[in-house]
């Protein structure tokens, strides 16, 4: 088992997520987490996938992904050269008088973002290990409900995945294919 994080730029068109999910399902690749959202370019969405590979080579997964016509660019996001973040929100019964919860929240750099009807909503962002540690620390207080986002990741420094294939104006204006008069030959 080896865990990898992939950032995938896709055309922002209907059905793209289904294509990616269907590919992973039919080829037997296990997805640990998946996050999709818009990018700085309205025509492009970014999918961040954390996957656990068992007997599949990463370059095979990437090659299969590239075969999807709507997939524009893929990059592996190794922890050392990228910033990884997950978002966690959870609810714990308590109040401002409950200083133990607040101590933990403070220690982990998390925040209490809501208190309604005696229920605290706590928010935290961080790397997976940080989020897991916070969860462990808060579990004894009785977690009523929790929700976690998929992991997202961004390369450190000046490098940008979008530089590789995209222009500032839109999708790949550098790659224009002339339509042949007759595709039949």
């Amino acid at each position, binding site marked *: 088992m080896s865990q990898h994080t992939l950032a995938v730029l896709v055309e922002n068109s*209907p*059905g793209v997520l289904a294509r990616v999910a*269907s590919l992973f399902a039919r080829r037997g690749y296990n997805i640990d987490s998946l996050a999709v959202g818009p990018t700085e370019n309205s025509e492009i969405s970014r999918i961040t996938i954390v996957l656990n590979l068992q007997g599949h080579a990463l370059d*095979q997964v990437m090659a299969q992904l590239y075969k999807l*016509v709507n997939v524009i660019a893929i990059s592996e996001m190794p922890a050392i050269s990228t910033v990884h973040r997950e978002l966690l929100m959870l609810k714990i019964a308590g109040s401002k008088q409950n200083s133990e919860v607040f101590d933990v929240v403070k220690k982990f750099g998390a925040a209490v973002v809501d208190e309604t009807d005696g229920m605290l909503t706590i928010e935290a962002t961080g790397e997976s290990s940080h989020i897991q540690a916070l969860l462990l620390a808060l579990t004894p207080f009785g977690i009523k409900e929790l929700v976690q986002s998929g992991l997202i990741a961004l390369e450190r420094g000046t490098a940008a995945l979008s530089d590789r294939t995209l222009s500032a104006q839109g999708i790949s204006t550098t790659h*224009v294919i002339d339509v042949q*008069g007759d*595709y*039949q030959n």
Partner: protein
Amino acid sequence: MSAEITGASSLVKSLEAAGVDVMFGIPGGAILPAYDPIYDSKIRHILVRHEQGAGHAATGYAQATGRTGVCIATSGPGATNLVTPLADAQMDSVPIVAITGQVPSNAIGTDAFQEADIRGVTMPITKHNFLITDPKDIPRAIAEAFHIASTGRPGPVLVDIAKDALQKMTTFNYPKNIQLAGYKPQVEPDAQNIRDAAALIAQSSKPVLYVGGGVIKSNAAKELMQLAELTGAPVVTTLMALGAFPDSHPQHLGMPGMHGSVAAVTALQKADLLITLGARFDDRVTGKLSSFAMNAKVIHADIDPAEIGKNRFADVAVVGDVGRTMKALIPALQSEFKKSKPDLAPWWKQMSSLRATYPVGYNHPEDGTVSPQYVIERIGAISGPDSIYVAGVGQHQMWASQFVKYEKPRTWLNSGGLGTMGYAVPAAMGAKVGMPGTTVWAIDGDGCFQMTNQELVTCALNNIPIKVAIINNESLGMVRQWQTMFYDSRYSNTSLESKRIPDFVKLADAMGCAGLRCDKTEDVDAVIKEAMSINDQPVVVDFSVFRDAMVWPMVAAGTSNDEIMIARGLAPDWDSQEL
């Protein structure tokens, strides 16, 4: 500003602009608007009897001609009937474009009458697909569909168009160029990889050219011949590649794989280098992967980067068009060979001995019934290497691969990857439409034939005079062979009784075809010649053959290629071979 036309007219004009000359289809509610302009179009529309027939006909047309085949169907069941041919074309990398009608856009998602999410259904079995709900998107989608289907690794593309998009008014503008940010097949091979490949070949004393269907798709038979003769290496052609290299050539060892020749299978097993050209290490070729060609280094040339390393590690990967790869490899190899050229004589001594000792052959049945292999061999001999042979799936397919001699590319059509029974008749129809001056034989089984024979009506009505040889062993023969071998001869549900019912001659007659029968070995040639003489209507010949004939050699599924059997329980005498 050009005048407004309907989306349907825009579709037909787009198909014309893409160079379509023929399409196979059936109208229905959602696609009906398109059929009105089709009525006036110069595109020939062939009205088939089942959408599956339309899909396989498009495939047969594409495989025979190298052009992109086109099929068209309505929404719901019309579209789902295309699922099998689309999956078939995907597995065998055949360029086809399927047009389907969809329910009106405001009804999509409501479980409307004849609604099926065909884009969702076909996502895993097409190279790409589109759902069009705005008529202005039609020309671009068609242009993109033909570009995607026919370039890179070819494959099927489906364009699903909502009925209201066909009905609404739009202006027609066929795009001069398209932008596909995520679609850039690498056609030119990398020069360093070519040099690495040439260096490996120059060091190899036991090389084999492992040739796959990509060589035919790339129209690269000429380059293959040059490369083969330059290297002097043995050549094996997979089921999808038969005809890419002449069977009569002295370097040809035959077909590898489950029913390959002993020489071809063993050449791969014992090689020190596989020069893999547009082939994909399919399980039917490799047998048990962990014991496949264990001492061989691998050069893998393919246009699809995802094939590299999928099943077998490649020591040198060359991504690109295989024809261009070979073209670049030839001069690189010539300069390597100037430095040193390995002596392949000892390797050839082994291979020649295997080829001479274990030719692919058969025995005539002792009970006096007709040998199916003999029938197929005679069809190939009498009709010759200029004819096109189209097989269904099963024993007759394997015999047609073994006993017809192929000399030219695009003369052997079959369903290799998906293994689609029922492929032969409609694919032969498509091939004949694309190559009307060529004799087209469907070599079919009695099981396969009963799946799609209704397209003979289409052939009869549309002057598509194909010839069909039914190799009638009144069984699902390949399944029966497995039952004989692996299920203690318990023939559960493989007896079709088709020597009794249906009467294929009467059936042929009823469908407007000439029907002939043959059940004696001495009549085989005469009946084939009679079939050859009929060219004004389709011909069906019911060859009643020996029921228990088996396909040999065989590497049982999941076993090693080293365990190849030349007959039941009989392995080659390896001890007598110097390997």
